[in-house]
């Protein structure tokens, strides 16, 4: 053992390095990154260049499960309540009913087209029933696709929460096949209730416990991310031991913990992002190693056909059926239906029949590999063009090149954001910035320059700005977008228009805001001008109870000509 560990270590390290470096290729070529990891595994494996003979299905399952638990925790942790609520109903329908429908349709196709007997066909359907969170998150967040929030939220919440359902179906079917029970009886239903109920309950409890523990303990700073990861795995395994769905629990725990005030939340997010990458690489490379690509030709035709059936028939039909009550447009139906990527979870689940010695397990595993490959290639590659063709892409909004989230100890709640100015940055045409933007540093040719004067700014400069997090989208418009914010930009200029001559107290009374006695009787224009002085700028905003007033336009004499009313969305 001691003699061989360096050999093992260098193989593992090289695999990790190759995987990480290959992300460069993936981002350039637009190839789905997970496909690249999988191929790295194939190449290293018994039929590839590396000739590593790895066929320990149980070890692969354990590694994959741990990795998946970490990925699910992170995806819950990074999902704000607002997004979750926005998409909960359609996404959870997809994550439950949708998985069953997809599984049923794939099973029917496998049975009718290729003569798999029903138990095997159903098992295959369940294995490929869930949409892969990793693939969806990666494509939607990193892959440069900006679809509308509602569509994106639905897909993210669905893919984050549908694994437990598929896992449950597969475990249930495997149990049925092993015990030769012939019907889905009460026992199965109660198993389902226990899995889901315990998963939810322990996930909630676990999430709250994680927050409490982290906020209570005074530790060395760098230890918190490790503590949280360990706690997440503890929730996962404890729930499994108790008979609940550990995957559901760890996702729910992430959701709960990520949405409460937790010490060093930003640092935790960063660490978990890294951990998620590592988990993805470990999971896909391990699964790629486990595969025996030389066996694929035997099931090539059924694999590809079923992959296409899944992409073109099963998933779209299931999506339409599930989303019908929720008033999505036709284009949105099509997009959600198409982004049904399969990934590591499916392969992971396909290991179970092999590990438990179910008849035809190896064939199911190979079929699953092919279906996942087809999905990653066909869907993964076409998502961006499809989103554009369906006109679901919201206008490109170049964002900050760097966001430095500082865990400031006070209530300051500011973030440091960096932008590299391009030729058309709207900021280059301005003499000053709205007050809610605090420039901190300007870097030119690697040197910081002392002047904070905006008229000295040039394309190519990097500007560091302190800003409150919920204002970052506004800042993007001001600095990074190709043209100044347009008058119709509700977020930037406010939903409604206010006449500048309106008395401020009438406005305040109408919206239930309170203004100081000495301000009563002033017009909105006067109120704003007194607030901002001569340096008033387009885009300046000031809060007034639950609303904000925005300076929309200045006339030639730099008097306030138009004022917008913005309804504050609490961050």
């Amino acid at each position, binding site marked *: 053992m001691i003699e061989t560990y360096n050999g093992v270590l260098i193989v593992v390290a090289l695999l990790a390095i190759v995987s990480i470096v290959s992300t460069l290729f993936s981002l350039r070529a637009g190839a789905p990154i997970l496909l690249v990891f999988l191929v790295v595994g194939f190449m290293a494996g018994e039929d590839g260049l590396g000739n590593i003979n790895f066929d320990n299905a149980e070890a692969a399952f354990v590694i994959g499960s741990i990795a998946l638990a970490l990925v699910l925790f992170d995806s819950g942790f990074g999902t704000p309540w607002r997004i979750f609520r926005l998409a909960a109903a359609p996404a959870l329908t997809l994550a439950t009913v949708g998985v069953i429908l997809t599984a049923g349709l794939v099973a029917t196709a496998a049975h009718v087209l290729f003569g798999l007997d029903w138990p095997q066909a159903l098992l295959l359907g369940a294995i490929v029933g869930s949409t892969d969170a990793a693939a969806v998150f990666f494509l939607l967040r990193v892959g440069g696709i900006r679809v509308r929030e509602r569509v994106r939220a639905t897909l993210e919440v669905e893919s984050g929460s549908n694994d437990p359902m598929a896992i449950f179906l597969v475990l249930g079917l495997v149990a049925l096949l092993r015990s030769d029970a012939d019907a889905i009886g009460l026992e199965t239903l109660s198993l389902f209730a226990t899995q889901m109920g315990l998963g939810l309950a322990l996930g909630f409890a676990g999430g709250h416990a994680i927050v409490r523990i982290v906020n209570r303990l005074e530790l060395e700073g760098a230890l918190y991310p490790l503590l949280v990861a360990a706690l997440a795995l503890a929730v996962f395994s404890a729930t499994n031991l108790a008979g609940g769905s550990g995957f559901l629990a760890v996702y729910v725990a992430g959701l709960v913990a990520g949405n409460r005030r937790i010490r060093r939340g930003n640092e935790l997010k960063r660490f978990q992002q890294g951990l998620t990458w590592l988990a993805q690489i470990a999971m896909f490379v391990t699964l790629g190693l486990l595969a025996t690509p030389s066996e694929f030709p035997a099931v090539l035709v059924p694999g590809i056909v079923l992959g296409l059936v899944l992409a073109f028939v099963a998933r779209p039909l299931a999506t339409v059926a599930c989303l019908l009550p929720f*008033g999505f447009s036709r284009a949105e139906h099509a997009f959600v239906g198409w982004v049904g990527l399969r990934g590591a979870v499916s392969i992971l689940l396909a290991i179970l029949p092999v590990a438990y010695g179910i008849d035809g397990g190896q064939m199911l595993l190979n079929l699953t590999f092919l279906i996942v490959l087809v999905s990653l290639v066909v869907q993964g590659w076409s998502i961006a063009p499809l989103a554009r063709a369906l006109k679901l892409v919201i206008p490109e909004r170049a964002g900050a090149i760097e966001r430095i989230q500082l865990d400031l100890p006070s209530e300051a709640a500011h973030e440091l954001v960096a932008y590299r100015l391009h030729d058309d940055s709207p900021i280059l045409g301005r003499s000053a910035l709205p007050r809610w933007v605090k420039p901190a540093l300007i870097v030119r040719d690697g040197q910081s320059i002392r002047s904070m004067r905006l008229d000295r700014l040039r394309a190519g400069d990097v500007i560091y700005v302190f800003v409150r997090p919920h204002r970052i989208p506004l800042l993007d418009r001001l600095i990074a977008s190709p043209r100044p914010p347009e008058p119709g930009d509700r977020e930037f200029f406010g939903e409604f228009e206010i006449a500048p001559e309106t008395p401020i107290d009438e406005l305040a009374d109408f919206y*239930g805001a309170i203004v100081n006695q000495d301000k009563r009787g002033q017009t909105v224009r006067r109120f704003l001008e007194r607030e901002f002085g001569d340096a008033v700028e387009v885009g300046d905003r000031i809060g007034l109870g639950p609303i904000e007033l925005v300076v929309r336009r200045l006339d030639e004499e730099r008097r306030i000509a138009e004022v917008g009313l913005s309804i504050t969305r609490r961050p």
Partner: protein
Amino acid sequence: MQIIDLLTPARVLVDVRASSKKRLLEALAGLLDERGTPDSERAIFESLVRRERLGSTGLAHGIAIPHGRSADVTRAVGAFMRLAEPLEFDSLDRQRVDLVFGLVVPEHFTDQHLMFLADLAELFSDAAITARLRAAPDAATVYGILTGGRERNAA
């Protein structure tokens, strides 16, 4: 609370004719008034007018969202009208208005009610939705479009 909770099919009308902004607001007040007394209707109308004096509630592209407060209502109430002829509404983009969503809320105007306004502004900024609203053959279809996208309004 979602937009669907604001509306009933009876408070969605199409092909409404109004000769002026004032007449339109009167008709809207009539629709919004659940109590049905001349006083309560009058109060709603006056609140809508008071709001218009602060600045037109006309958004761009032919949409208006007149809103007001009234001590006579106990919950937020909405009504929708599609006009037969676009009407001058003093919108900033000078475009006449043909889609009008009225909202009246209780006197204690809370943040929750403001969220309705934000949601409505967002809903009507969707060109696909407004195109469907304009093309819809009847009030029932319009009601379906407005309330169908319910999860859109959940946040």
